[in-house]
């Protein structure tokens, strides 16, 4: 089962998704949240941004970098709504890891829950990587979670990965339900000390 998976490295071709403050309403428009499973979410990824007014695919990066595994984004990616549908859609489309300048917190947490490394680097590093991906659409981009580096072409660049995310992925403990379930008796003790929890 997935919860045992150690994620030390992910990689594949890249897709640059440029722009700051790309919110989860862009990533997964609200009208597609009306399904009770995540199964079809890949079909709705950036649904509006990827299409012209007549419904035909436009030149959005997702239409041009089919098969990519690593998304390269800019500042405050995934802001707004907490919908896990957004990273679920990215994962189901094929994204295994994200490199960006920064991430909204809930989005980053959702990535962790799904075992998707979301790593950060400064503007210059990220922009250079986006440019390289544009020039090398078939080039391999690797996120080394264990060593906190991203490798592409001849480059090895340092990236930041939140220590909790790094430990969780590398040690294969990113499924927090299993992890926390084993502490249920401690949870009950903590709850019983709270004046507002009925005994």
């Amino acid at each position, binding site marked *: 089962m997935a919860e045992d998976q150690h994620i030390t490295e992910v990689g594949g071709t890249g897709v640059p998704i440029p722009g700051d403050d790309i919110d989860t309403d862009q990533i997964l428009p609200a009208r597609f949240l009306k399904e009770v499973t995540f199964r079809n979410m890949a079909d709705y990824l950036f649904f509006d941004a990827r299409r012209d007014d007549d419904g035909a695919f436009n030149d959005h990066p997702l239409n041009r970098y089919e098969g990519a595994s690593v998304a390269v984004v800019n500042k405050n990616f995934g802001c707004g709504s907490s919908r896990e549908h957004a990273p679920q859609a990215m994962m189901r489309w094929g994204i295994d890891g994200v490199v960006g300048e920064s991430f909204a*917190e809930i989005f980053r947490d959702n990535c962790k829950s799904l075992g998707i490394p979301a790593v950060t680097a400064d503007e210059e590093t990220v922009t250079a990587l986006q440019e390289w991906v544009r020039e090398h659409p078939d080039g391999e981009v690797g996120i080394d979670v264990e060593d906190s580096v991203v490798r592409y072409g001849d480059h090895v660049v340092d990236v930041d990965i939140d220590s909790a995310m790094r430990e969780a992925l590398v040690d294969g403990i990113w499924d927090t339900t299993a992890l926390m379930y084993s502490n249920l008796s401690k949870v009950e003790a903590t709850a019983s000390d709270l004046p507002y929890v009925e005994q």
Partner: protein
Amino acid sequence: MSEGTLYDTVWERHKVTELPNGQDQLFVGLHLVHEVTSPQAFSMLRERGMDVAFPDRTFATTDHIVPTEDDKRDRPLADDQAETMLSALERNVEESGITFFGLDSGKQGITHVVAPELGLSQPGMTVACGDSHTSTHGAFGSIGVGIGTSQIRDVFATGCIAAEKQKVRRIEVTGSLGEGVYPKDVVLRIIQQLGVDGGVGHVYEYGGPVMREMDMEGRLAVCNMSIEGGARAGYVNPDETTYEYLRGREYVPEGEAFEQRKAYWESVASDDDATYDDVVTVDMDGVDPLVTWGVNPGQVVEVTEPIPAPDSFEAESDRTAARKAYDHMGHEPGDTMEGYDVDVAFLGTCTNGRVSDFEQAAAVLEGRSVASDVRALAVPGSQTVKQRCEERGIDETFIEAGFQWREAGCSMCLAMNDDSLVGDETCASSSNRNFVGRQGSEDGRTVLMSPAMVAAAAVTGEVTDVRRLDPPARAESGGEGEGEVAD
């Protein structure tokens, strides 16, 4: 690192243990559930053969997908997907023993409106919900965080989330609110000043004279939009305003038990000498009514001031964002938002869907009419809000002015039901997000503002400084009548 703040105290009280990856396992004292983000979590729970660990600390309602037209709420709902979602929720809460405020409960509404008004949200709690506006509950001096669906599964199965402590930023709101300026303007100002990602990695503690004077519904509006500034949680320290608001509410203990509970509430407030990671001052003196001019909630301007030119921003990223906003909104350099054409007026949501919001808007609408080419929706945040408004006759003010007086739900904030912008319509909205496509149309435009400003825009058909609104038509009608006679 912060010390002695409410955040530190509440965190310590709820910390179960440290997890191997360095995060804390944190007990969630109140888990709020709605139909859109929970069905997958219930399925995951079932796959693992687990039960809801703390059903008594879990409360559900339905808000995102419900129709707000009275005659469309009969079951089955006309929208098959909506019916499926609602049925799934009903089945899930029934099986799990979770209290559910359904369409026929008289208490249904937006989670972040329902929980406060029933007294479920209290000081010193941790609150989680699969919705980013869970920051709202911080108004009571609790820690409220929005979570994703896998984390909902965590809370169902274990009563906990895995989390790491954030930095605490004290936001000192100084000065006083001028005429026509409301709590909504306070939070828009904060986001304008600190940026839409300024709060990433932080929790906001709102304080200072403006917050001290503010009533609970105002504090709820401010805390609600913390997430719009990048802060997952924001709170106000509890005080007498908080305690008096809570007294007598359904889920709040009475008599001696109230006093005991209050002692806990008082014990969690930040110490006078608490240490913060940083302190920021936001001065409200001289601030005019604010509106958004762009496509993120930090693109804010005083209604009568020129919209900032893209080139006026220091950072290239802000210039790019401004150009994108100009393009989407159709601005020209030198424009002001005052006079910007409005097609739809939308009043409601978890930000501004409470009784005082409708009162403020009604005060503007009294004796006035909605412009003939404006579609105006008043959507109470809950059935309780709707009932309170009707008891006070506020609904009649809205209906007489030409507003549609709807049933409770999230409605046109994100258009998951039939309430949607069409084409490139512009909406004067009391909601919280002006993202492209947010209100249901890719070309739609959203201008965020206070409820009073929404009412003013509804009347004139354009973004309007509520302080400069012409006197009500009714007061002038004598003069106009005479004119007609003379003709």
